[in-house]
C-alpha cells in the first residue's frame, strides 16, 4: 500500500514582484518502508513541496491532494494536521540550530514532543528522551539530556533533531537536506543512523537533497525536480545509469569525481529560471543542448521512457534515448536537429557542451 500519494500539487506565492510558481503540478507515490530521494537545485521547488504537504507553507495558494494513508493532508483542519504532524509524520530540517529552541534544554524539548502526542508521565517521557539520545549516538545521554542546544556540536544537534523527529515513531520521516551543513564523517553517521532506523522500524523516508551522492546511497526511487516540476522519475539505478532527461544528464555531467582529475566538467549552461517568469514550453529549453522547435511551444508531460517500469521523463526526445554515452548523446543531437528550424537552431548553437557529436 502507498503510504503517501501526492496528486497534482500546485503551490504559488503571491509577491510584490508577481506570482511565484514554486510547485507546478507534482504527483508521486511512495510505498511504506521505502526511501524517496528528491533532487534538484535551489529554487526547483523540492523543499516547498515537502513543506506544503505537512502544512508549513503559510501564505501560499495550494491545490491538489496529498494522501497520507488515504487521508488528504491538504484538506485537514489545522488541529487534526497538528496531530498527524509530529506523531505520524515528522520532519528534519537542514539547520538544526534554528529548529531547536535555544532557551530550553534539549531533553525538555524532546519530552515536550512526546507528551504533546502521547499520554505518558513526565518521568517516562524523560526516560524515553534519554533512550532516544542514546539511539542517535549522543555520548552520555543521561547527562547530555540536560544540556542546552548551544552545548551540542553541529553533528550532535542534528542527531538531537533526529531523536526528536523519531520520538513518536513516525511512519513517515521527511528529511530536508539533513546533512548539508555537516561534515562528511558526520553525514556518514547520520545516514547510517537513518538507514538502520528504517530497517528496524519500517519508517518511510523522503530525502530532499541536492547531493546526488547521498541519493545514490540510500534512495529506492528518485525524483528530479526543475522549475517546480518533476522532470524525471526512476528507480535509483535507472536514474544513475540510464537517465533520459537532458537536465538529469547535465547534473551528472557537472559532478566532479566521475571523470579524471582536472578533466573538464560538463556543466549545464546558464542558470535556473526565475519562478515568476518561467520560460515558455519546456522550462529547461533555455539551457538544453537538445532544444527543438516543439520545446519552445509545448511543455512536455511526464511520459514513460526507457525499458524500466516506472521510468518517466518530461522531455520530447524519443523515449528510447537513455544513458550517458557519446553515442546516445549523438543520437539525441541528431533527433533534436531534425526538429530544429529558426529559433531553436540559434538557441542550440554553442550549447553543445554536453552534446557535441563525436564528429
Amino acid at each position, binding site marked *: 500500500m502507498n503510504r503517501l500519494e501526492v496528486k497534482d500539487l500546485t503551490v504559488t506565492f503571491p509577491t510584490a514582484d508577481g506570482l511565484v510558481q514554486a510547485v507546478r503540478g507534482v504527483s508521486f507515490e511512495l510505498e511504506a518502508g521505502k526511501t524517496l530521494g528528491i533532487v534538484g537545485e*535551489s529554487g526547483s521547488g523540492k523543499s516547498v513541496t515537502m513543506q506544503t504537504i505537512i502544512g508549513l507553507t503559510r501564505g501560499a495558494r495550494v491545490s491538489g491532494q496529498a494522501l497520507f494513508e488515504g487521508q488528504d493532508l491538504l484538506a485537514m483542519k489545522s488541529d487534526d494536521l497538528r496531530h498527524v504532524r509530529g506523531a505520524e509524520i515528522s520532519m528534519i530540517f537542514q539547520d538544526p540550530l534554528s529548529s531547536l529552541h535555544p532557551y530550553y534544554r534539549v531533553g525538555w524539548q524532546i519530552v515536550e514532543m512526546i507528551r504533546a502526542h502521547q499520554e505518558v508521565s513526565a518521568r517516562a517521557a524523560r526516560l524515553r528522551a534519554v533512550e532516544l539520545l542514546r539511539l542517535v549516538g549522543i555520548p552520555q545521554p543521561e547527562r547530555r539530556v540536560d544540556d542546552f542546544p548551544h552545548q551540542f556540536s553541529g553533528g550532535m544537534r542534528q542527531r538531537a533533531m533526529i531523536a526528536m523527529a523519531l520520538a513518536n515513531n513516525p511512519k513517515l520521516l521527511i528529511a530536508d537536506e539533513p546533512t548539508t551543513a555537516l561534515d562528511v564523517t558526520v553525514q556518514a*553517521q547520520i545516514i547510517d543512523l537513518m538507514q538502520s532506523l528504517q530497517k528496524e522500524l519500517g519508517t518511510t523516508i523522503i530525502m530532499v537533497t541536492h547531493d546526488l551522492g547521498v541519493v545514490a546511497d540510500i534512495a529506492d526511487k528518485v525524483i528530479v525536480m526543475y522549475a517546480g516540476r518533476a522532470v524525471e522519475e526512476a528507480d535509483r539505478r535507472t536514474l544513475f545509469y540510464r537517465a533520459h532527461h537532458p537536465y538529469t544528464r547535465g547534473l551528472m555531467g557537472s559532478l*566532479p569525481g566521475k571523470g579524471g582529475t582536472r578533466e573538464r566538467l560538463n*556543466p549545464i549552461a546558464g542558470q535556473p529560471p526565475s519562478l515568476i517568469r518561467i520560460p515558455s514550453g519546456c522550462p529547461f529549453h533555455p539551457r538544453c543542448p537538445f532544444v527543438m522547435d516543439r520545446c519552445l511551444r509545448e511543455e512536455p508531460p511526464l511520459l514513460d521512457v526507457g525499458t524500466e517500469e516506472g521510468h518517466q521523463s518530461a522531455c520530447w526526445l524519443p523515449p528510447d534515448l537513455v544513458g550517458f554515452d557519446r553515442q546516445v548523446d549523438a543520437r539525441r543531437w541528431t533527433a533534436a536537429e531534425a526538429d530544429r528550424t529558426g529559433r531553436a537552431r540559434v538557441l542550440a548553437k554553442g550549447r553543445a557542451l554536453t552534446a557535441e557529436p563525436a564528429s
Partner: protein
Amino acid sequence: MIHAVAPGSAPQDSDVLVRVDDVRKYFPIRTGLLRREVGRVHAVDGVSLEIRKGETLGIVGETGCGKSTLARCIARLYDLTAGTVVFDGRDISRLSRRRMRPLRKGIQMIFQDPIGSLNPRRRVGSIIGDPFAIHGISRGEDRKHQVQELMRVVGLNPEHYNRFPAEFSGGQRQRIGVARALALRPKLIIADEPVSALDVSIQAQILNLLTDLQDEFGLTYIFIAHDLSVVRHVSDRIAVMYLGKIVEVASVSELYARPRHPYTNALLSAVPVPDPDQADQRERIILVGDVPSPINPPSGCRFHPRCPKAQNLCTEVDPPLEVKKDDRAEHVAACHFPVEVGEKLSRARAGIAQPERQAAVEVSHEAVEGAIGPKEKT
C-alpha cells in the same frame, strides 16, 4: 609546470613558491573584567608544508580543523603565533602591515560567500577595480578597460560594468570574486570553499573557469574545501588536516590509492559517491564521536580518541609527519600504525579508554578504492 618535480625527489628550492615551517596560530580566550587569558584555541598547531609553483594544493578536513586559519596565516591576514612563511623566496612571517602591502599583490584570496564578500551598494566595475585603486596601478578609462578585460576573462559580460552585485546570480557573483582576485596577476590564489555555496551545475562552471585560468596565467592554487570530490578534481596534491595538524600529504592518486592515516581512510570512505553500484559495494568507516575541542587537544596523536588502531603509544607520543615504508618520498603521514594496503580497520578494536564508544569501523582498501575508483593522472 605542474610536474616540474619528478615524483619521489625532493623539490628544488626554485620550484617552491610557498614554504610553511612549523606555523602555529593560537587564539586567546579571554573572560572577565580584566580580559584575562584563560585558555587558547590551538587552531593551527605546528604545520609545515611546501607549495610548488604552478600546482594546486588541496587542503581538506572537517569544520574546525584549522584549514581556513592556515590559509589566512599564509596570506598573512593573521599574525602568526610562531613559525615562518616564506613566499617566493622571502620570509613574510614577521613583516609589518606596511611592508606586507606591496607583497599582497602576489597572494590573493577567493572566499566562500560571494554575497557577503561584495558590497551591495557599489557597482561591480568599481568592486573589481578596487585592487587597482588600492595599489595605485591605473586610473580613469585605462582602469575601466582593464576591469572590462578581467570581466571578459572570467566569463562576465563587460557591458555589465555598472550593475550592482544583487543583479547577478550566485555563480556570476563568484566570477566577480575571481576577477577581483585575478586583477593584480597574483602568483598564488587561495580559494577558501569557493564553490560550496553554489548549485552543482554552477559549481562545475566555476571549477572549469579556475582550471582554465590556472593554465592561462600559470597560477598556483591553495584550494580549501570540505567536499572531497571537488578537491580531488582540482588538486595535484592534497593535505589532510585534523585538529590543527596535518596528518597526511600525498599526490591525489597516491592518497586515494593508499591512504595511510586512519583518519584519511575514514574521511575518504565517508564521501557519498554518485554511483549506486559503488555505493552499495563499499564499506563506510563510521567514526565515533565528535572532533575534540582545540582548546585542550588530546595528548599524543590527536586522533587517538576516535582511532580504531590507537594503542598506548598513541596517547603519549605525537607521531611525526614522515614517509612510511614503501611509500613515495612525497607521501607523508603522521601515524604510528599506518594503515596497510588491504587492511581492514576492524570493528573489534575499540581504541583507547573510550567508555562511550561503540566502535563501528570496518573498511578495506579495496572498498575505498572501489568506491572512489583508482585514479592515475595523465
